[in-house]
């Protein structure tokens, strides 16, 4: 088996996420979508932002943007590469995860966890150890190959807060914008732009001691049962009820090599944690 399906998925995402300007409805399936809300069914996604941006996607028809008010520079890109991108992935059979990742030896090492847990900082820091960035914040999985879990390369630019910039040494670029108090950053070891198989998905957690252990069973399901919007999109796009969500999580658990990294969360401990993770990544054989 090769990366053919993942390359096809990547081409599909590039085609389906093309943006054009036009009128966007205020309702989907006869139900109004208020500012700051979205609605998704098995073929379409409709989002209206609080700032007056409307995004509508229909499978095989691309994305339509309706801008009803001026917005700060960069805001359209944030929505387009964030919520809209993840919804399109979910509607086309891919699985978006709330994760950042680096690449090593032709495989992806991903780090997941709630917002603020340090996913981007860790991935950026690993750039100092020579690991190129694979994605920031959203990892797209293609599960169509029974022999491997393929990951699609990141579509978002790396975003870091000021503390993370200092810790990782990543070069600061422009400020992201009013929505997010971060700056874009240049990954020190570059970026990967082609699909790669997944080596490991590591969830991040706070803890007094540095350690990494595999997780399975209920703990794994619980970690994968993310309440991030990316997980909700998969459930809604596939029309899953709770039993269906359980089956989906069990399917993910069966194919994702999952671990839990605990580490003290302090600037002083960051270097030790980074060295530990770098050694773990290097030690994993393809």
């Amino acid at each position: 088996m090769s990366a053919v399906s993942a390359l096809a998925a990547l081409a599909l995402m590039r085609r389906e996420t093309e943006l054009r300007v036009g009128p966007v409805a205020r309702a989907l399936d006869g139900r109004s979508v208020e500012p700051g809300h979205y609605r998704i069914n098995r073929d379409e996604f409709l989002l209206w932002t609080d700032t007056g941006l409307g995004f509508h996607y229909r499978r095989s028809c691309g994305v339509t943007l309706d801008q009803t008010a001026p917005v700060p520079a960069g805001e359209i890109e944030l929505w387009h590469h964030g919520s809209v991108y993840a919804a399109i992935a979910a509607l086309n059979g891919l699985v978006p995860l709330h994760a950042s990742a680096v690449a090593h030896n032709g495989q992806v090492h991903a780090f997941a966890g709630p917002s603020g847990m340090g996913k981007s900082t860790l991935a950026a820091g690993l750039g100092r150890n020579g690991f190129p960035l694979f994605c920031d914040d959203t990892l797209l999985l293609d599960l169509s190959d029974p022999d491997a879990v393929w990951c699609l390369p990141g579509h978002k630019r790396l975003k870091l807060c000021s503390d993370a910039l200092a810790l990782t040494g990543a070069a600061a670029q422009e400020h992201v914008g009013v929505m997010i108090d971060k700056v874009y950053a240049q990954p020190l070891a570059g970026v990967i732009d082609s699909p790669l198989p997944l080596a490991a998905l590591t969830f991040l957690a706070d803890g007094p001691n540095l350690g990494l252990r595999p997780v399975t069973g209920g703990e794994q399901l619980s970690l994968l049962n993310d309440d991030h919007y990316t997980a909700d999109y998969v459930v809604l796009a596939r029309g899953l009820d709770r039993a269906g969500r359980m089956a989906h999580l069990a399917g993910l658990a069966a194919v994702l090599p999952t671990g839990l990294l605990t580490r003290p969360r302090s600037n002083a401990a960051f270097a030790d944690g980074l060295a530990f993770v770098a050694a773990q990544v290097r030690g994993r054989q393809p």
Partner: protein
Amino acid sequence: MSAPLRKAEGRFSETAFEDEVVVMQLDSGEFFSLTGTARDIWLLIDGRRSAAEIVATLAAVFACTESEIAGDVADFLAQMTEAQLVVAE
């Protein structure tokens, strides 16, 4: 103790791992991770066995007295009954 126990079909979804069964209560979305004796009890609930028969079966399997294991079985069944995952016929 004498009524057969059955799982409340339609109220849960379960998935088995190597040494664990994870049960989701569909109304609440709550996960139950069943390992060890809890897993064994869950697997013995088949609509025919009563609580007493489950205790007897486990006592034979683990080569212990029924009194040693009856409390664990009762506690587990009470938890599952409260979660509406197990009902007595």
